[in-house]
């Protein structure tokens, strides 16, 4: 079917819709608490709001990845698997939709919280003059220690992309471990242990490959994180093809 991929993608988003709406709702509440604290000079509320927002940002991205792995597991190991695998779609498409949904969700949530963080920091610095002075002092100090170090949005954005890329690759490694567990090791002794060992081995391999890249230095912060993001994504693409090939050949649901 021509639009099979877009339909699959639509249903992948639908499966995770509820948890994303909950995350959005909690974020809205935490943001209101933070803004309330900021405008009414209630520092406790402001700090609580900021802490909860930080937790939701990090926790949200982690949760979306974990939820994606659990959804894949359910889609291969429960009766709901028929809903996917009886449709005229290849495993490449089925898994591709899952990978895209997860990658886009992690990226969008990451960008959303990054933008919200920038907005909140800007509001905070403009409302509290003394904090603005502290920020300037910190950046000056770092600049004096090493003139290449800069606390700016570009560096933070590069770091965010690097971390998101690594997390995405971790989720993809969990995908492959789960696919191997379901398609090749199903019903065998030590299935869980072997698939977890595969996950660890892949993580070590990616870490080893990334250690071959240039190390981090103050003048190359952006390059450092972008290279890590690119290698993580390239590794993820390779893992996707291996996983889909295994599913296509061996998976019985």
């Amino acid at each position, binding site marked *: 079917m021509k639009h099979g991929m877009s339909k699959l993608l639509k249903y992948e988003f639908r499966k995770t819709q509820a948890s994303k709406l909950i995350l959005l709702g909690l974020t809205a509440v935490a943001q209101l608490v933070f803004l309330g604290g900021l405008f009414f000079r209630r520092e406790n509320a402001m700090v609580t709001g900021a802490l909860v927002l930080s937790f939701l940002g990090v926790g949200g991205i982690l949760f979306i990845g974990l939820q994606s792995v659990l959804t894949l597991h359910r889609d291969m190991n429960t009766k709901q698997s028929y809903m996917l695998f009886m449709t005229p779609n290849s495993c490449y498409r089925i898994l591709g939709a899952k990978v895209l949904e997860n990658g886009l969700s992690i990226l969008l949530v990451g960008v959303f919280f990054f933008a919200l963080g920038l907005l909140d920091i800007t509001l905070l610095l403009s409302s509290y003059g003394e904090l603005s002075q502290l920020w300037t002092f910190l950046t000056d100090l770092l600049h004096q220690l090493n003139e290449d170090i800069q606390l700016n949005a570009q560096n933070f954005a590069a770091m965010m992309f690097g971390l998101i890329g690594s997390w995405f690759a971790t989720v993809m490694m969990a995908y492959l471990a789960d696919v191997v567990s379901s398609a090749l090791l199903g*019903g065998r002794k030590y299935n869980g242990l072997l698939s977890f060992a595969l996950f660890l081995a892949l993580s070590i391999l990616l870490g080893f490959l990334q250690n071959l890249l240039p190390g981090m230095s103050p003048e190359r912060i952006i390059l450092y994180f972008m290279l890590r993001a690119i290698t993580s994504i390239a590794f993820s693409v390779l893992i996707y093809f291996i996983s889909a090939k295994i599913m296509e050949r061996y998976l019985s649901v």
Partner: protein
Amino acid sequence: MSDVTGKAEKNTVPGTLESRDITKTFGGKAAVDRVTLSLEKGHVYAMLGPNGSGKTTWMKMAAGLIKPTSGLILFESQPVSIESRKKVAYMSTEPYFYSWMSVSDVGLYYQDFFEDFSYDRYTVLLKKMELEETMKTTSLSSGMMAKLKIAVTMARDAAVYMLDEPFNGIDLLARDEIRTAILEYATPDKLLLLSSHLVEEMEAIADRAVFLHHGRLVESVSLEEMREERGLSMADRYRQIYGHGEE
């Protein structure tokens, strides 16, 4: 019965479903054991056998959900594939819809993925089965769920329908509705394959029977021939094979 060559042919035979020396093992035990079987359009087949005889596994292999350990399973002389899923409608005995779905969502899902699905036909079938589109699938009784599975499967205009235990958990009146819905599709251009423990029920629908035992094919036979040549009904033959006087 077809020639066991281990290869698919280039020429397709419309509406046929066959397995050649097909085996599926789970943990070393054969659920389906070297079954060679050919099913043709224009017939309603009853696939019979007690639990563990291999009916569901054979159907799932024909639907492309389970990969055979060895042998070939063919639709229109080609190995089952993504293409065959466009023309083969399979209904599992277990409920398989996503928990967030309503009856209407189930139809929309099928409409999104199967070109031969008709939402209008689905609506008609739902009405016959006394199901509301707004009902949540999680709130359906086992009987209602069975009717929903039938409605959504039969709303496809497929070449092959495989219904695994369509009468499970269904009362007598609902069975009549389901039987009527199924028989509407028993036309010369379609192949229907049904499995059930309810032998008498199947005798009223099917014109051919496939008997499986311990994963092996006992026989695939025309009911009319069996009656005329051997003087046996489907139930008689069932008792012969699976009863104490087992072959």
